[in-house]
């Protein structure tokens, strides 16, 4: 199950979709809207996705995880639209025979989602709104070996 949804995410369904007789462990990661961020009072988050590619990239993360760890199944659901405080924006479930693999693959999945799945987060805070990752003046850190595919800083033209 690799899906986008505008409706509240049902964790039970996600768990059912990865439950396997050969699995002794299921690790889940659930992202929720936090009421504060970098000193701002957050009211809600709003997610926008590139449909089609987003689901495909989610599934690609599972394929990659299965190459790296002995996991049984992975499922990921991501919300789009407005997500209020305490509500779930993303849920990942990973089943495996052994817990070490489930933990590692789940951690990998959330890092990969936040790195390369085309889903964008707008923070609605007291006094304004902000697309996360695109604040003017934000400093980006280049990872070793990572390729910067484009930029639009005015001085780079």
């Amino acid at each position, binding site marked *: 199950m690799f899906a986008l949804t505008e409706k509240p995410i049902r964790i039970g369904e996600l768990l059912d979709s990865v439950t396997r007789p050969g699995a002794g462990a299921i690790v889940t990661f659930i992202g929720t809207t936090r009421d504060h961020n970098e000193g701002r009072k957050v009211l809600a988050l709003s997610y926008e996705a590139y449909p089609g590619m987003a689901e495909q990239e989610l599934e690609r993360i599972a394929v990659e995880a299965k190459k790296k760890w002995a996991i049984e199944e992975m499922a990921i659901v991501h919300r789009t639209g407005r997500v209020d405080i305490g509500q779930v924006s993303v849920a990942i479930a990973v089943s495996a025979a052994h817990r070490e693999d489930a933990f590692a693959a789940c951690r990998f999945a959330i890092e990969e989602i936040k790195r390369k799945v085309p889903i964008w987060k707008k923070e609605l805070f007291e006094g304004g709104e902000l697309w996360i990752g695109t604040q*003017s003046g934000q400093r980006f850190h280049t*990872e070793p070996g990572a390729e910067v595919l484009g930029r*639009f800083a005015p001085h780079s033209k």
Partner: protein
Amino acid sequence: MKVKIRLFAILREKAKTGEITKEVEPGTTVAELWRLLQQDYPALDVPGVRLLYAVNQSYVGGEYVLQEMDEVVFVPPVSGGSPCLL
């Protein structure tokens, strides 16, 4: 030759549109298309933001040469709020 451009999130808001069809010369790369688009929409010149390029729902490098009716998406930093690197 025509390509279809889709804009999301901050780019969609800046350009005030989510979809643009643009006529380009054969041989144009996706990085060149971005610069052409910024000429059409100066509001897209958002400082300090790095982009990825996606064509037909897969990430490509800036040197990708556009084909007729390609669907091009310029991908601003995704939800992590961390560096937008492939």
